[in-house]
């Protein structure tokens, strides 16, 4: 049995300790906001927070999450009102939307540690998050908007 906190709630899961966190979240807990995009830590669609740090849940084994706190997109805020979520809507960032939970979770960790990131900081931190629809410019703008950095 693996015990951990997910979005503030203690959960006990009877799963293979090597099962990636992603599948425990999606298949066992029904938290489908975190997405499967590649299973190889290449695309970032599966990004969640583990004790506040970004991990690719598709490769993070459950035993690594044992006794720790996981935050998924569903738990990032109450009612979708995290500044990033608001900025994402204000700037109409998403197109298909599949990558955006991962983008937002990574950006949230960035802002938590660097409240006024530069463009370079944003690009470096989000380098692991792919967007096939090509919303990168709006992602960058929305991170800055959420950070209160004025438009150039």
């Amino acid at each position, binding site marked *: 049995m693996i015990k951990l906190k997910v979005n503030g709630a203690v959960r006990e899961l009877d799963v293979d300790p090597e099962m990636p966190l992603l599948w425990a979240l999606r298949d066992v807990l029904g938290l489908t906001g975190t997405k499967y995009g590649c*299973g*190889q830590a290449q695309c970032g669609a599966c990004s969640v927070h583990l004790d506040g740090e970004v991990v690719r849940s598709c*490769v993070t*084994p459950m035993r690594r999450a044992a006794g720790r706190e996981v935050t998924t997109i569903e738990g990032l805020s109450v009612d979708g009102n995290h500044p990033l979520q608001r900025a994402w809507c204000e700037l109409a960032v998403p197109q298909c939307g599949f990558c955006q939970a991962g983008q937002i979770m990574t950006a949230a960790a*960035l802002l938590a540690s660097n409240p006024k990131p530069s463009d370079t900081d944003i690009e*470096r931190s989000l380098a*692991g998050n792919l967007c096939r629809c090509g919303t990168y410019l709006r992602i960058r703008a929305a991170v800055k908007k959420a950070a209160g950095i004025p438009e150039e």
Partner: protein
Amino acid sequence: MCHRREARGRCALVIALVALACGCTRRESGEARKGGGSPPQVPAGELRSAESFAQIGDRAERSRALFAEASRVFLHPRCVNCHPDGDTPHQGMDQSVHDPPVVRGPDDKGVVGVQCTSCHQDHNLELARVPGAPQWHLAPRVMAWVGKSPHAICEQMKDPARNGGRALAQIVEHNAHDPLVAWGWNPGHDREPAPGTQEQLGRLIAAWVESGAECPSEGARP
């Protein structure tokens, strides 16, 4: 200066280095020499054993040859990829730039969102093909090996200012037993391992220390 155990080791080092510097430059060769010289070469994936260098009579020359052999490990892409001199790790036998693009970060562990351990776990993942070992991270910049000669790596490795403040005994320990170093021989998923085994490297380095921790000359190659 020589008031601590660690520093005493350093003292010995300094003395040895000074002695070396005063000596004349020796003809250096890692190639087999006729009679009493280096042991015969082995295939690329193997390492010559520490014992086989005993046939080199001259202690200093033996020492240099031992390090040169060890440098076949250090310069192998499996190792040198995480000892870059720049801000990004390398990947693959062709040592191309790591993809996804990642940067060193302030503590050699990556930056927010793409820390090394955001993706790399404590062991290799076969289905996901992501390599892993405990505490995956980059060697600090002072320990960069890319583009360095065995001589330069040797000097670096002996220098407490650049080797994380380690005494020679700790250098032996690090090479012989560190679990991240160990990964070089167990890289997973069809990746070519470093030559030999970690145990063999450990013995080579121990023998090198024991023979005076001499560095190969600048032009020497394994």
